[in-house]
């Protein structure tokens, strides 16, 4: 049951990402150790947990540092079995590594329904990055080789100094039309 919950929370994280970023390009969502906002796993719940609920599979980040209530669930391990979760649950999703940085959400589940989703981690400056990314022009890269053979009249580049002039493309263009 808890595995299903974790999968569900991860899916929620992806859905939250999709809505907040309004872009179809998603990076991989491989889970990673929590960077500090919260260890993945159930952080509180009315269904009691045994303190040693199986071997932890996330030992580096299972200290329960992300608790938001007084009743953290011991090791916070995401594996192991537990009884049915019919009460209130607060679950930290795993950290999704997106192209804009790590994203982690916390989901409140009451009687099997999500009642609240909050972001524990969002990439810093992500909106700016996404905004910038919307101006990307990858298709220009394929024109690079074509441009080499194109006939051009003049070259625009970061300040060509007198020292570098003789080796510049502009010098070649100038000499082709120079009559002395």
């Amino acid at each position, binding site marked *: 049951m808890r595995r299903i919950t974790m999968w569900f929370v991860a899916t929620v994280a992806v859905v939250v990402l999709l809505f907040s970023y309004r872009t179809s390009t998603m990076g991989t969502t491989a889970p990673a150790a929590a960077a500090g906002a919260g260890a993945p796993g159930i952080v509180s719940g009315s269904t009691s947990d045994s303190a040693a609920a199986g071997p932890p599979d996330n030992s580096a980040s299972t200290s329960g540092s992300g608790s938001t209530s007084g009743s953290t669930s011991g090791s916070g391990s995401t594996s192991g079995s537990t009884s049915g979760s019919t009460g209130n649950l607060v679950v930290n999703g795993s950290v999704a590594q997106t192209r804009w940085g790590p994203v982690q959400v916390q989901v409140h589940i009451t009687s099997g329904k999500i009642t609240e989703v909050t972001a524990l981690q969002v990439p810093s400056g992500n909106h700016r990055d996404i905004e910038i990314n919307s101006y990307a022009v990858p298709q220009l890269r394929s024109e690079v080789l074509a441009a*080499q053979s194109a006939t051009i009249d003049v070259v625009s580049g970061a300040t060509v100094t007198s020292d570098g002039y003789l080796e510049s493309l502009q010098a070649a263009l100038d000499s082709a039309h120079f009559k002395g």
Partner: protein
Amino acid sequence: MDTTLTRRSFIEQIMGLPISVHVRGPQAGSAEVADAVDTVFAELRLVDALFSPFRPDSLVSAVNRGEPVSDPLLDAVTDLCAQARERTDGYFDATLPDPSGGTRFDPSGLVKGWGLERAAARLAGHEAYVSGGGDMVLRGSWRVGIEDPSRPDRLLTAIEVADCAVATSGGAHRGAHIIDPHTSAPAIGLRSVTVIGPSLTWADVYATAAVARGPQAVVWLAGLPGYEALLVRDNGDLLATPGWPR
């Protein structure tokens, strides 16, 4: 215009820059054109004499010595520098920190484009371009190659544009030489920015300010009416404003 018709180039070194003037058309080889090009170079030499921070007898040097200077061209440049600072949210700033701890007035970043624009006006009526170190004023239609900042012997792309200005700023040839005025640290994030628009003064100011501002400058550039830009990020990725010719 058939390019098999006469085309002639003229080259001089002024302001420490190679200045290339090309004139195309049946009159390109005429004495009249040669005279007009001479006035272009003379204008640039005058601008250099007035505004070079490296010449002790320039207006800029006098200003920095605290001497009273009254000159209409200096007033025009000072006004443009104030406008440039405003239009770029301070990312273009002609008031630079001095090694001694004070500040000095160095309008070089604006004077080059402004001077080239003024000088190119001497070729009104001709199909010609005036390029100073990769920044240019174009009259008539010309094919412009945009240099790859990581490999200056190659081009990123080529565009055909008419009656406009093209300016590229960045650190390809001299290392990181654009400073973010807000942090006083070398600008990071962009290798080069090319701006196209009606005025070389402003295309050059916008390109320089964009390098100082970093990749998010593309959003700002996209909002500038009449100007389009191509940006090369440090990792080689390209950004362009929606109206960039392609």
